[in-house]
């Protein structure tokens, strides 16, 4: 026995000392809080962190769970474990214990329990030392701008090569994904002395401090964002509000959306939802633009000299083409009468544009050229993943192509964000800036996205701009105007194969010194003037009165 003692304690003591240290000294991950995502004023968090409490048990203590007393049973009832769940947890722990891989390392058996239960467990820890409560920062989303902010998820196998470790969280969409490096912070480690249950008793040196993630400020104006979301509630579509002076996105909403807080637990349900709530319709949705495309057709016709300001066509409500038995109708069945370009845009007269296409030779390739000039069929380059580029037909091979395209139909597809750029070009008289969602520090120069100078004359642009003012002043879209700020815009009602027309409105305000441009798209919403235009009006009101208009209205109702 003395020989054996000598063997263990003198010959092998280094080996057993190391084993002993391995038992009690455990590296503990220090998860840094992820950077907070703020709105444009840096005051209100859109995504921040709260403390979540997880219940952990070290697999080698599974027997203690098996032989639980009454009090411990009560705890598991408090944690809402069903008997089957409980059995499943036990089986999982047994398996881990048998596998002998880190059987001392506590594993989470219930995530994110409520604070009362956590407090109760912490209080009674001496009776149930095997049940460990661990706090960790948990992402909390405030329910706004889900698509822009995105979400985080557990790392996948492929991320492990990029410096992530198991159980790390990684941004998977939106700003969370694009600014991952900025937001994630650096994982820290500490060496801690633990007991057999995995309870941390004290910290040992050395410690690598966790570096908290840095925050970002978005360009979003939270009030406007919330307004946009409220307007779209119950509908399918997208709203974008952008500052035309620098391309900053003030609001971007896409509905239906999702709750990033519960996404992980509802992943299958949300992922398979036919309404596609994960799709950011503002950047990824491709739609026929309908009448708002007439802005581009008008630019092409004026700039190529196909018509001048005073050229007039007569609209009797229908338009006949050779070899085509049925007439193409204007939306006013008895016709608009004589129309010049200004009135044709104000009244959105289809017959005028049919005339441009068929009598003044505004061809598909010509429209294509100008569409590209306005930035269509190209991603805007916004800092969000998955943006789509739409498509613009180049050669009108088939008979219907031209007549469809000149009123923004057919194979023509655009994203709401591209339309935001188009309306910014109008607002800025020829220039639009690359849309941004991250607030730049002072002096961050806006990047030019579309510049028509040298390609399109200011005169042409002003003709169209004035027409856009006319639309809200005397056209269909008076509801998009404000009493003390002159707005301008264009509606669209895009026919599609899915049902009612997609309802479009793009506009800006104030007319003389534009500060805000909006794009409204409601899928299958109906006429643009009836659905989208009033929503634009509310967006303008929100922007200019900061919600005071609605407040006054509510008060008068009471």
């Amino acid at each position: 026995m003395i020989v054996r003692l000598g063997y263990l304690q003198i010959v092998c003591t280094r080996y057993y000392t190391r084993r002993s240290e391995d038992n009690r000294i455990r590296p503990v991950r220090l998860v840094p809080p992820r950077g907070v995502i703020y709105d444009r004023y840096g005051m209100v968090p859109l995504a921040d962190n709260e403390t979540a409490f997880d219940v952990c048990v070290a697999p080698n203590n599974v027997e203690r769970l098996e032989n639980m007393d009454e009090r411990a049973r009560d705890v598991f009832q408090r944690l809402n474990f069903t008997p089957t769940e409980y059995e499943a947890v036990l089986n999982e722990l047994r398996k881990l214990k048998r596998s002998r891989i880190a059987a001392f390392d506590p594993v989470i058996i219930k995530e994110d329990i409520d604070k009362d239960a956590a407090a109760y467990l912490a209080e009674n820890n001496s009776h149930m030392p095997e049940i460990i409560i661990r706090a960790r920062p948990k992402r909390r989303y405030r329910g706004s701008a889900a698509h822009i902010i995105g979400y985080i998820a557990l790392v996948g196998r492929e991320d492990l090569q990029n410096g992530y470790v198991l159980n790390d969280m990684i941004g998977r969409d939106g700003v969370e994904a694009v600014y991952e490096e900025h937001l994630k912070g650096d994982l820290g480690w500490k060496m801690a002395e633990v007991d057999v249950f995995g309870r941390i008793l004290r910290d040992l040196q050395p410690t690598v401090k966790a570096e908290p993630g840095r925050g970002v400020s978005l360009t979003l104006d939270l009030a406007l964002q919330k307004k946009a979301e409220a307007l779209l509630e119950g509908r399918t579509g997208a709203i974008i509000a952008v500052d035309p002076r620098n391309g900053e996105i003030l609001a971007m909403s896409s509905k239906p959306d999702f709750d990033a807080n519960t996404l992980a637990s509802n992943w299958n349900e949300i992922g398979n939802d036919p309404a596609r709530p994960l799709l950011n319709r503002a950047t990824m949705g491709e739609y026929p633009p309908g009448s708002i495309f007439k802005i581009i057709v008008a630019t092409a016709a004026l700039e190529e000299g196909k018509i001048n300001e005073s050229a007039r066509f007569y609209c009797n409500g229908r338009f006949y083409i050779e070899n085509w038995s049925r007439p193409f109708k204007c939306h006013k069945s008895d016709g608009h009468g004589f129309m010049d370009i200004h009135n044709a845009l104000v009244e959105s007269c289809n017959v005028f544009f049919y005339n441009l296409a068929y009598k003044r030779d505004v061809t598909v390739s010509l429209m294509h050229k100008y569409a590209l000039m306005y930035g269509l069929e190209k991603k805007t380059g916004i800092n969000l993943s998955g943006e789509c580029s739409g498509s613009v037909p180049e050669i009108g091979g088939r008979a219907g192509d031209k007549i469809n395209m000149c009123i923004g139909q057919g194979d023509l597809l655009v994203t709401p964000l591209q339309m935001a750029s188009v309306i910014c070009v109008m607002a800025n008289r020829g220039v639009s800036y690359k849309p941004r969602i991250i607030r730049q520090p002072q002096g961050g120069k806006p990047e030019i996205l579309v510049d028509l100078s040298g390609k399109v004359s200011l005169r042409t642009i002003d003709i169209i701009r004035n027409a856009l003012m006319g639309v809200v002043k005397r056209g269909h879209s008076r509801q998009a105007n404000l009493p003390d700020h002159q707005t301008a815009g264009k509606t669209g009602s895009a026919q599609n194969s899915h049902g009612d027309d997609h309802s479009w409105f793009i506009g800006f305000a104030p007319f003389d010194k534009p500060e805000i441009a909006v794009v409204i798209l409601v899928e299958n919403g109906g006429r643009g003037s009836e659905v989208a235009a009033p929503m634009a009006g509310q967006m303008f009101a929100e922007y200019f009165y900061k919600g005071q208009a609605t407040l006054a209205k509510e008060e008068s109702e009471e």
Partner: protein
Amino acid sequence: MLLATSKKIRIKEFDVTLLCTALIISVFGVLAIFSAVHSGLRSNDRLWIAQIIRLAIALVAMSVALIIDYRVLHSFSYIFYAVGFLVLSVLLLFPEQSGVRRWFMGGAVQPSEFAKIILIITLARYLGDKRRVSRIFKTFIAAGIIVMAYAFLIFMQPALGYTLTLVPIALSMFYIGGINEIYLLLLIIPGVVSGITTIFILDKGWNVASSMGIIKAFIFVAAYGCLVLLAYYLVSRTRFKNGKKWVKFISACVLAGILFALIGTGMLRDYQKSRLISFVDPGSDPKGSGYQIIQSKIAIGAGGLIGQGYLQGTQNRLDFLPAQHTDFIFSVAAEEGGFLGAVFLLMLYFILIARGIKAADKADDAFGTLLATGLVAMIATQVFMNIGMALGLMPITGVPLPLMSYGGSSLLATYISIGLLLNVRLKRE
């Protein structure tokens, strides 16, 4: 009447060393228990205070065992035996507590501890009475039945460890009592051989019933046969008296042991084998087996030469060491006291056992000698089984370390034994 005066007291023979050694070990025991429970799981239970109270009770019991005339036990021994038999039988009728029936009153009393002393007294009386006819077969069988009856009842609890401690007790008393050595060898050799072979077979996971197993077993037996022939040849060349006869006898015994183990394990079903493994190794489930042994070895090994210091052993303090205040109290001492502390403790036990043997030697009558022999064998066996287990030399049997492990019955029984050892040496006709 109990304090019969028919014997003189030889104050000179009062063994202060034995008593002091026991007391010193007990003090270390309380200190070790304090260390074992001062933090972690049982830190609220103040078990060391309970142990001090039990120590006081045990000392009172020891005084009684010391003062009475031990010959009184001689006359009461068969009555004790009958009572003990009854108690152990009744115990089996109680419902199981976590799979075993070892305790009365929720663990407060362990009858097996006292049953062992009763068995020793009874066996001492029987062998003492029969010492004139000790070498005949009938005596051997009768003494064997006395032991087997208790062994069976304790085994049924089930408490394999306690049952195994009866074997050295019985063998040492048989030997001192004059039982024919041939009978003892007939017991010892096949018993040891089949035990080792069974553990070997289970450890290797051999399935003797399968064809591969049979081939392996055949090779095993054949190799053994060659060894025997070699031994026979070598012995026949020497002038050792009756050498060939001894080789034949021993090899027959060994062969019997091997065959018994081979046939025994071959007949076992899988679940019976795993039951047997968990019998030998009750604290572990078959898949994660050896956890306790591993942690105990880590604790002892990490102790190093001088130990981690009192109350500083991390294996102990952080509860990695299982049952550290009962079965693995030695590991606590070795982790915190190191090689030097552990060797010191072993020396104390060595002195204790040596003084006990001396008491057997100095006893005035056959009953006293046999009684002392049995008691020393009991203490020594428990010390070896417990420390052997902590060192990973023996399977886990759940035998407490006398005088150190937390537990009243073991402490009480050990001090009664020490009282009797002192008593046996002190009295003379």
